[in-house]
């Protein structure tokens, strides 16, 4: 790479590579259904030309000719680089890196995966007579290698392993609508997966929705499950994204730092390196080390996610935060959100609430969230609480404005629970509109 770059007169470049080996199985009512394996590679080359403009090319051909071709392609593309805000190599790409020491688990034979998934499916099917299929199921394991190098001598490398189990049973009783819910578990390897927990959760959730009733349309106090609240925060991630601020598509502005954007009960950090984050990255796409970054403290906006380029553009002492994705235009995204809330109104409880709605999971976030407008209108699975008793809601949507929603958090209940996308307690919000299907 270095020789090729030198031969082409390229003084500044960087390269990100990801290699993966994935295997997965799927079963159907006691029989193996599909087994899949995938070997994949992906590389992205960035080249700076003599005028400091950047071009990129992506390829999955990691052979020497393939990378040479990508280098040449990126050099050609640099003629069209953005002159106004070209990125630079991250000055932190050579900073010392604290390894995460995540365990790397062995890849298990596919037959073992099948046996475990068949057993999990059998347990789910046997758990209740109304459950006759688990239409969405799978057990997958992956090995990943990431590499980042640049012409300034940076060299980052990380290997991870991960495994995922998902079980989504479908239950149906005579004369009633079919119901479905599910559970997902993530771990560093198949042997570390909480299979029993996943089976129990998928089963309990599905059964809990069998006895359903419509809900009256109206304004309710709502309790978001950790997964649901994290989904909502992720969907509005542009609120803390410095690139979105610069692009004018964020609900926040530079001047929003320090302002009260949420209830004082809410504290949110992004923590890629949290022990609960499976296969956590040690560095981002620009080679910048990942770290814990406070975003909202006591309801006040404290920091934005930054790339090298946004930190430079802000010119306020900001530095890259380890959230950048390599690209012709560098983008930013959260890594793993860590929500810590204060208790607030202690009368609100999932165990004793009445006339309140407990949202278990949100759907269709890709369609129902308008991140730049702040609005959301989302279908959900959940329960109406009455004297602490839960009754499943037949079909409904929840709608609101994220700014108002965050300001109207009235309680955070329970210890934060780890999920694949972060950690959160149950979060209570008052004044959200629920539309029930008549």
């Amino acid at each position: 790479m270095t020789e090729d770059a030198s031969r082409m007169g390229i003084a500044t470049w960087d390269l990100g590579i990801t290699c993966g080996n994935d295997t997965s199985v799927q079963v159907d009512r006691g029989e193996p259904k599909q087994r899949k394996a995938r070997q994949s590679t992906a590389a992205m080359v960035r080249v700076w030309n003599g005028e400091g403009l950047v071009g990129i090319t992506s390829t999955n051909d990691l052979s020497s000719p393939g990378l040479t071709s990508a280098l040449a392609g990126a050099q050609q593309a640099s003629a069209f680089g953005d002159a106004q805000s070209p990125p630079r190599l991250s000055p932190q790409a050579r900073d010392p890196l604290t390894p995460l020491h995540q365990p790397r688990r062995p890849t298990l034979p596919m037959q073992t995966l099948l046996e475990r998934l068949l057993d999990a499916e059998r347990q789910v099917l046997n758990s209740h007579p109304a459950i006759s299929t688990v239409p969405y199921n799978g057990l997958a394991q992956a090995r990943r290698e990431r590499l980042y190098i640049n012409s300034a001598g940076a060299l980052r490398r990380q290997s991870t392993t991960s495994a995922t189990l998902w079980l989504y049973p479908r239950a149906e009783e005579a004369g009633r609508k079919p119901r479905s819910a599910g559970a997902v578990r993530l771990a560093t390897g198949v042997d570390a997966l909480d299979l029993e927990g996943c089976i129990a959760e998928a089963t309990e959730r599905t059964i809990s929705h069998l006895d359903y009733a419509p809900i009256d349309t109206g304004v309710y106090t709502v309790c978001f499950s950790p997964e649901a609240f994290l989904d909502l925060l992720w969907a509005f991630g542009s609120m803390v994204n410095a690139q979105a601020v610069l692009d004018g598509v964020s609900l926040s502005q530079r001047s929003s730092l320090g302002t009260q954007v949420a209830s004082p009960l809410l504290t949110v950090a992004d923590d890629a390196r949290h022990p609960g984050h499976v296969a956590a990255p040690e560095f981002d796409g620009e080679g910048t080390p990942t770290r814990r970054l406070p975003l909202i403290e006591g309801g006040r906006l404290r920091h934005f996610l930054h790339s090298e380029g946004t930190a430079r553009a802000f010119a306020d002492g900001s530095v890259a935060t380890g959230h950048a994705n390599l690209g012709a235009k560098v983008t930013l995204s959260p890594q793993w959100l860590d929500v810590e809330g204060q208790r607030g109104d202690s009368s609100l409880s999932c165990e004793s609430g009445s006339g309140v709605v407990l949202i278990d999971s949100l759907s269709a976030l890709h369609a129902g969230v308008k991140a730049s407008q702040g609005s959301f209108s989302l279908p959900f699975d959940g329960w109406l609480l009455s004297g602490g008793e839960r009754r499943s809601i037949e079909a409904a949507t929840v709608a609101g404005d994220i700014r108002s929603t965050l300001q109207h958090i009235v309680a955070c209940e329970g210890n934060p629970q780890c999920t694949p996308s972060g950690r959160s307690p149950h979060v209570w919000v008052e004044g959200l509109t629920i539309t029930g299907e008549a």
Partner: protein
Amino acid sequence: MPSLCLDPPAPSRLDRLDQRWRPGLEELLAAGMAAGADLVEIFVERNDQLSVLAEQERITSVSPVMGCGAGIRVFKGNCDGFAATNDLSGPALMTALEQALGMLGLCRNTSASGWQGLAALRDYGSGKEQWLKVCPTVPDSAERLREATAALERHGRHLQARQASYARDWQEVLVAASDGTFARDLRLHQTTGLTLLAADGDHRATISRRDGRADDPHFLAGWPVEDVAVSACRSAGTMLYADVVKAGDYPVVLANRFGGVIFHEACGHLLETTQVERGSTPFADNIGQTIAHPAVTAIDEGLSSNSFGSMAMDDEGMAPQRTVLIQDGVLQRFLSDRAGEMRTGHPRTGSGRRQNHGFPAASRMRNTFIAPGPHKPEELVGSIDHGLYCKQMGGGSVGPTGQFNFAVEEAYWIENGCLREDKPVKGATLIGDAVTVLPRISMCADDNALAAGFCGSVSGSVYVTVGQPHIKVDRITVGGR
């Protein structure tokens, strides 16, 4: 062990996929059949993609992507094993085959398979060889996108952000299977997009317009930039101050073009054999039965010239068909692929599709639309006392129980049979389930129109067209505030 013919020289990403692959592919297929497979299928592809983004007056991203790879699928009984690789060398492909065989408990051996070999190559790619060369260059596309953002600036008010995008996806595929299938195709999909954010105090509106076309290298040159910009800016001006829709149950009229997403989500997915296999469609045993209002005839096809979901062959090498799904409310057919036919008995319809070599094909929609009816759009509106006119639809999804949802980007109240363009509303989400809603589609207008879109499902994201005339749904739940 037989040696592979593919090596040397190993094919590279730059090599054309054609007859030269026959010996190597036949060797792989013969090895798979000798190992005891019922059927072996190999999908090879190489692609060349480009995306360009303009923001305000600047080109902020030019992103070329080059790739290649192969997916090998082995069937035995009702099971299949699938292995994918980026490496197109002979040894790597043989390793992938062995991996797929091993998933089914099969081992490569030295015995002869008696397999008859591939049929003559059906080359759907001939005549398309120049497409990539005549596609817009980066400077051409950049110029067009700057025109688009400038048009937004000219026609819009309170604009805070303007974006225009162009994406080109060129793909060469070769499909070989032990049933003799040997077919090649070249595909070209291009999309354009306009997005703007208007803001005035606390009022905000995001408006998007997207278009797409298959197999037309000159698509970008024909993009009606000015018209699209005017339309987007007009919508932004209207929606910026629109009220949020009041939640409830209403009769609705869904506009043509992208309104077809309701049928795509509410019913189309449930007519794919992947759903029959899973037991997650309520229509599995309803062939020949009435599942929709008699006003509804629905079709899925892959034949319409330049439509986004059209193709000369599907990703299993089969020529596409015109498949009537529902005729006058009666269920006629399911969309089926190779695995679907094997597992459910529904004949293949040329609907086996995948995003790329990393996914096994699955039964997927192509160009899916509700057929036109006898009415004028005004008659639909005129039949409603108090309801909603949904002019622009957003995305949607369907869950494992058939519960669907989709977002409405731009809507207006209908009062006393009149469309109230002075009463725009935003923030609506329509929810329901197919069994309930299909019988409520009671009127279809005569103005069928299609729109390009993307559909994500088990075999990745594929290009599709949705479409319909204006339709009336007698009652549906509208989520709002």
